[in-house]
């Protein structure tokens, strides 16, 4: 232990010396100030040297914030956009058009707040209670949870209503009302998904610690936000790959992502990933909580609704080029996008640049991870004529992302008497209540001769009597 510590001190001294050297070699306008801040930074700000206040005098000189936590170039301005049907000022949707690779920066990660309250929880006071049908109802502190064996995994989250027709309706209403702001279509329609590396403790481990009793088959997790969001989950899923997460992208969870602790339910609807997690109750049936009945069920045309459909199917989306982009002219471009699914890995992504007539296999970014975004890329020589581009993916079980018409046909066959696809597509696309579920349909973009990119799916369903804009 002692030798380790002295090693560390030696390392720190060495780093300080190196940093000093580096500082000496860079012609800063105020070299003295930077030299004085370096030891203080290495000592975590607690060293003898006071933090300087005279940094950032000239434009290229780093401010103390640049050095303590950093920031992006002032030329990068992409931000989350406000929900199209939420109040102005609430910004919560991921700018997919600007995402690169498969990790969404925490500052871009979409968020959903049940009300306008953003909890600010002290981790020293936060506890997780596991109770109900267990042998040993237990309260864990955050410190205790962090002592347990942890895992880090990359997983996407997606809001249940992402890509739903209701958002297009709201988007058009916003345009009509002159409320475009810097809202883009891809962000407004599909920005309710993000992908992070999450770190935490497997729920199966915690459940073994408390001893699940015979007969328990579901659990209800509850958050410590003011609306106390709660959600039921099958025990089998909980024992499979669910974990309670305290880390996101190499640091603690962001406040808007449930700091200090959240549920992470890979491959399922976002609503299951309860934030500010404070309790888990083991029970013998789903609990029919408001948030799993009102908003996350699917009424079918026969009046029957299905519920507890939580697993996402194969879904993909071209993020470049997409709605806000404008191609400067004919030539070579790299089509890029994301694919994800709720079961296993993405096995294949195909791209069509001729409105679905021919398809080419895209390159998949490696490694392809389970229940994580998979970035796909394909070179494309645009000849400058109008066309429609789209992607479709296949998961490792062989399931292929369906077209909207295939989905509609399936829904029509689900009910007695069968409903023709033409009718059910109309119903499905326009119902005010049927959109609150995962929308996995193929999402095409129209490329206009002037290089601008437009939606090529939702506007084809207009106009109709059920869709007043």
């Amino acid at each position, binding site marked *: 232990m002692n030798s380790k510590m002295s090693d560390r001190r030696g390392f720190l001294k060495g780093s300080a010396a190196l940093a000093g050297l580096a500082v000496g070699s860079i012609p800063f306008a105020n070299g003295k100030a930077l030299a004085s801040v370096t030891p203080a930074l290495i000592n975590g700000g607690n060293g003898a040297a006071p933090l300087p206040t005279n940094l950032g005098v000239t434009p290229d000189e780093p401010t103390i914030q640049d050095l303590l936590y950093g920031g992006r170039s002032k030329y990068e301005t992409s931000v989350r956009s406000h929900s199209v049907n939420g109040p102005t000022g609430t910004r919560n949707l991921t700018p997919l058009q600007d995402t690169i690779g498969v990790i969404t920066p925490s500052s871009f990660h979409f968020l959903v707040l049940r*009300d306008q309250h953003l909890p600010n929880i002290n981790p020293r006071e936060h506890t997780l209670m596991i109770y109900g049908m267990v042998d040993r109802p237990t309260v864990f502190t955050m410190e*205790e949870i962090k002592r347990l064996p942890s895992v880090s995994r990359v997983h996407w989250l997606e809001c249940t209503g992402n890509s739903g027709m209701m958002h297009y309706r709201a988007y058009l209403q916003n345009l009509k009302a002159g409320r475009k702001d810097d809202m883009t279509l891809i962000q407004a329609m599909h920005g309710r998904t993000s992908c992070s590396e999450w770190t935490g403790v497997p729920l199966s481990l915690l459940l073994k610690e408390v001893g699940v009793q015979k007969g328990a088959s579901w659990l209800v997790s509850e958050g410590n936000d003011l609306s106390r969001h*709660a959600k039921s989950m099958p025990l089998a899923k909980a024992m499979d790959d669910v974990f309670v997460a305290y880390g996101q992208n190499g640091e603690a969870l962001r406040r808007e992502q449930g700091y200090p602790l959240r549920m992470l339910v890979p491959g399922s609807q976002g609503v299951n990933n309860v934030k500010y997690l404070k309790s888990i109750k083991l029970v013998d*049936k789903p609990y029919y909580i408001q948030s799993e009945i009102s908003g996350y069920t699917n009424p079918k045309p026969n009046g029957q609704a*299905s*519920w507890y459909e939580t697993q996402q199917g194969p879904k993909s989306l071209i993020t470049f080029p997409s709605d806000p982009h404008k191609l400067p002219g004919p030539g070579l471009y790299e089509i890029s996008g994301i694919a994800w699914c709720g079961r296993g890995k993405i096995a294949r992504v195909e791209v069509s640049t001729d409105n679905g007539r021919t398809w080419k296999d895209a390159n998949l970014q490696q490694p392809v991870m389970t229940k994580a975004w998979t970035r796909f890329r394909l070179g494309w020589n645009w000849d400058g004529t109008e066309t429609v581009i789209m992607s479709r993916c296949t998961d490792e079980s062989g399931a292929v992302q369906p077209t909207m018409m295939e989905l509609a046909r*399936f829904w029509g066959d689900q009910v007695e008497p069968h409903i023709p696809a033409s009718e059910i597509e109309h119903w499905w696309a326009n119902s005010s209540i049927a959109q609150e579920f995962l929308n996995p349909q193929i999402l095409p973009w129209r490329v206009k001769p002037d290089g601008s990119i437009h939606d090529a799916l939702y506007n084809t369903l207009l106009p109709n009597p059920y869709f007043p804009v």
Partner: protein
Amino acid sequence: MRCTTPYCRIRISRSKSYFLLPVMALLACGTAMAQLPTYKVGRPATEAEMRPWDAVVGSDGKELPPGSGSAKEGAALFAAQCSFCHGKDGQGGVIVPTSFGFTYSRLVGGVGTINSPTGIKTVGSYMPYATTIWDFINRAMPPFPLEKNLTPDNVYAAVAFILYKNGIIKETDVMDKNSLLEVQMPNRHGFYPDPPQEKPGKDGYWLPRWELAAKPAAK
């Protein structure tokens, strides 16, 4: 027969189970040992912390606390604390500001509209259990920034008022932990009978019904 360990899907025929008894006894031992805590962190939860009505309430109402209220009592409460968002008679119409903008402010009416393109989800037209309303009001209402100040009596009264406005109970009916469970919601049978996850597919996983629409990959 079926192994009772919840995470085990092995099926053994009844006739052969006799021969497997010694093996099963061993397995049971192993299971019991595996259920002992390994890391021994955390402290026992206290009764007060597990106070059932402070947490989620399920459809069998086990956690419902003592207390009662009627629509008559609920009317004044509703007017004072709920009508701002939900309308004087629960008819809704006010956009409730949430970050995702959905408003479920309408509580009354819409019965029989769920199978139409302009369907209206309300307590009366959609909710299958009255306990769901009790649970939601108790935990989430009134929303931030208003103060959460409802007693169990208040919640029973508010639920009674909403059920009365939906024509489900009478104005004088008293709601308590027993009578609430007897309320027959109009849409009680409006859902598929079983959550799909209770019947996992042949690979052991539950599938959303629509995923079956995805066609197999072309060879």
